[in-house]
């Protein structure tokens, strides 16, 4: 994996730049010392590491704004980072770039019960929003597995999904307004803090959501709150084969049900999470489906019955329905901690994130088994089956020479298989550096160019998170589009409407 060549002249200016940034945020929050920069070398993927030029942790939106302006004026690259949980290397630092960490901006600014909106700062961990509004009978629906610590700002940047996005939608469906700072330090506000607040404007909020830190840094988010479902129960169904489980996924959706979540775990994942879930599984189980149904009590009872019947007719060995809220939470927490629990099975793993049409599940899963044999690497599967979002976990040992390269090639082949099956490279982890070089497989040149022009409109100097998402530089200078700099239009004499 190649990153842009670091600019030595910027690295040489480290001390001077640190002094400038210290004037903005204070010495305590500019990390210059080499020992202290090391823990920031990677995010959720340890296979890719780079020493950041400096790490800066602003304590307010205003400080963040000044930091960006300072970097812009000094032509220094900036990599935004929340809690560092990205699984695509989205927060991988640059040796000649400032790592801008939003973790100190972690206040819930307001909770509006009537309009069901909360205004939060970007460094608030996802789950803290739901915790803060639980007493009002509300919650924030998108629930990526990393929700205990992944920040809402990072969720916006990656357009994160989660177990419950099958029924309720992803991050983009749950934000009503955002405030973001451009690389110039200028602040833009999009949408509002109420439903419909984004009507009548170009959907730039949609553009920023999932833009992986390439366009602007989000400093405030107005999120939609949803009523907590009256009842939620999870039915776990064990199957003697992966195929049978996959067919059951299609059958459940085919029966006209949209479950709140529909998750797949294979035998290896089950063994890894057995201790967390505190349950034993039938020894014949090769795959488990977890299906959550929520709504009113009557509704849920009826749906549980239908799903149970479907599972039986699809060859389930056994089905179990959660009886208490505690049991339900335990099952989900085991699913959410599954990736990390794989750490018990192997020294290193690489988890990727293709999405395919549901009916292609058996085909692509077979391909995966075949690739595993070809590369001689073990893998486990744990994914959002309902929306065809695959998360193959490839196990390797970074200490073995050549193992990482094999794992990368295996992962790339899986993603290519996803695209070839009519799917896409990423479901929710983002492209980052991990899938960057495969973008040309999914997109034509003009597709990519059009996306890059959007990048140039926001960040013509290509200072924000360069080297991510796009396999080439965006050549913004060549596009030479008209842009506003510090309020001064270039070519001011051109007639305008």
């Amino acid at each position, binding site marked *: 994996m190649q990153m842009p060549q670091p600019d030595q002249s910027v690295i040489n200016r480290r001390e001077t730049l640190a002094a400038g940034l210290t004037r903005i945020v204070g010495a305590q929050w500019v990390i210059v010392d080499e020992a202290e920069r090391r823990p920031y070398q990677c995010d959720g993927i340890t296979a890719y590491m780079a020493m950041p030029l400096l790490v800066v942790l602003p304590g307010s939106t205003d400080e963040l704004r000044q930091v960006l302006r300072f970097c812009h004026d000094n032509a220094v690259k900036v990599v935004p980072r929340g809690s*560092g949980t990205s699984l695509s290397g989205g927060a991988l630092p640059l040796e000649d770039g400032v790592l801008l960490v939003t973790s100190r901006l972690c206040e819930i600014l307001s909770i509006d019960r009537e309009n069901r909106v909360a205004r939060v700062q970007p460094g608030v961990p996802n789950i803290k929003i739901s915790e803060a509004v639980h007493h009002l009978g509300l919650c924030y629906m998108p629930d990526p597995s990393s929700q205990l*610590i992944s920040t809402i700002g990072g969720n916006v940047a990656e357009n994160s999904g989660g177990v419950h996005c099958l029924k309720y939608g992803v991050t983009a469906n749950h934000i009503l307004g955002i405030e973001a700072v451009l690389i110039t330090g200028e602040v833009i506000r999009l949408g509002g803090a109420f439903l419909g607040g984004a009507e009548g404007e170009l959907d730039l909020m949609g553009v920023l959501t999932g833009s992986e830190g390439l366009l602007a840094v989000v400093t405030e988010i107005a999120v939609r709150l949803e009523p907590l479902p009256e009842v939620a129960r999870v039915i776990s169904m064990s199957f003697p084969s992966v195929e049978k489980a996959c067919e059951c996924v299609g059958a459940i959706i085919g029966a006209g049900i949209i479950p709140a979540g529909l998750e797949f775990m294979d035998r290896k994942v089950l063994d890894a999470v057995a201790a967390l879930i505190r349950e034993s599984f039938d020894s014949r189980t090769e795959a488990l489906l977890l299906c959550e149904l929520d709504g009113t009590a009557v509704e849920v009872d009826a749906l549980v019955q239908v799903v149970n019947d479907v599972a039986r007719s699809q060859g389930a060995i056994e089905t179990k329905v959660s009886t208490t809220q505690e049991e339900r939470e335990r099952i989900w927490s085991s699913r959410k901690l599954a990736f990390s629990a794989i*750490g018990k099975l192997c020294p290193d793993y690489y988890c990727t994130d293709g999405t395919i049409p549901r009916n292609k599940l058996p085909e692509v899963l077979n391909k995966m088994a075949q690739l595993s044999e070809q590369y001689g690497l073990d893998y486990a599967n744990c994914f959002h089956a309902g929306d065809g979002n695959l998360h193959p976990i490839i196990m390797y040992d970074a200490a073995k020479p050549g193992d990482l390269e094999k794992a990368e090639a295996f992962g790339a082949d899986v993603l290519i298989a996803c695209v070839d099956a009519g799917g896409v490279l990423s479901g929710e982890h983002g492209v980052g550096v991990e899938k960057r070089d495969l973008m040309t497989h999914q997109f034509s040149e003009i597709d990519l160019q059009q996306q890059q022009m959007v990048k140039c409109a926001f960040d013509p100097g290509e200072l924000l998170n360069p080297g991510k998402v796009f396999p080439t530089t965006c050549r913004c200078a060549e596009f030479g589009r008209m842009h506003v700099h510090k309020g001064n239009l270039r070519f001011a004499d051109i007639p305008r409407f």
Partner: protein
Amino acid sequence: MLSHIPQAAQDADPNISLAKDIIGTCVHCGVCLSRCPTYAVRHEENDSPRGRIFLIKSMYEKGGAPDDKTVEHLDRCLTCLACEAICPSGVEYSKLIAHGREYVERHYRRPLAERVIRGLLVNLLPRPGLFRAALAAGKVARPVRGLFSGTLRAMLDMVPTSPLPHPSPVDRPQVFKAEGQGAGTRRKRVALLNGCVQTVLDTAINEATIRLLQRHGVEVVVARGSGCCGAPAEHMGDEDRALPLVKANIDAWLREADGPDGLDAIIINTSGCGTSVKAYGHALRLDGQWAQKAARVSAMARDISEFMAEIGLNVPKNPHNLRVVYHSACSMQHGQRIVNQPKDLLRAAGFTVLDVPEGYLCCGSAGTYNLLQPEIATTLKERKLRNIRSVKAQVAASGNIGCMTQLAGAVGIPFVHTVELLDWATGGPEPAALAGQALALE
């Protein structure tokens, strides 16, 4: 996570080799950050478990003396082990940080003032006589504590304003017979670790523990030669001072265990010490002469709440329907993973039990942490006090003297040890902290 620790360093020190294996189990997912008190205060990776794992990895990779910043961040860890309890990959952080600290103490020269203060704590705390004298001296100096800052100020602030209890007769080596009529009433025979600081600051805890056990048909022995568990020195990475204390306890308890009457368990009523005793087996695993003995002691160690849950609580004689907020010490819930037993016992004794919001967060006491890192400790203390007050309980209970000392003065309601309530409910005297108030509360 892959590390590049030189093979020679691993060969020279088995603890470094162990560290490499532990680091290998971390997948850098970041879940631990969500439970880390210092991260909750600082929001900075270097003050998170994941960051400290990285710092320790770099320290061993580089070898030689660790740098100031690495030491600063390792010092800031409370060793609350909330990270280890939530870690889905099973990273044994407790061992990593303990050996990391030993490495720091061997290879890093602290500034003079720090050396003096650490030396003072390591020497004072395990010796009740000296500790008592120091508290008396501290009391004299307390009025002028405004002249001091940092650790010294924190130490003076901690000096109790009320008179210290007299040394309790129960804390001398002796045997307490099980209650009940006739022969064969003894259900179990246990040794009690009466501890060091606890015998000076709050003698009622051991007294209540002994009464409670006796009442339940258990013979209790305070073994001659047992004393401080070694945790204060161990927390500061001072293995040389910790191990003699550890070995003295092992000898004292095994003498009882191998005596004519035997021993069913070693009871600890301070969860901080419990975590430490349960780790004796690991601490001495490489010492051929002591490994087996240490492992035996660790296997016999039980928190009083664990033990009482095993033998079952008598039907309460005086049920009191008080609203009790239970503060679970980190060493209890994370270190020993004892979560439900104390609450179940309190409920069985007739109390209404309430949980503390953000209960996983440390109160900042953490052994000697509140003295060495007063700033973070105070922030955590205030947060814990807010959380405890928010549930509007009548009494607070905990199973660790450290937390009680940290919180009791400021929480606004009586703060007692769990065993004091269990003792009271099953026929013992009303806890002194509640004296006269209980009836009004009910």
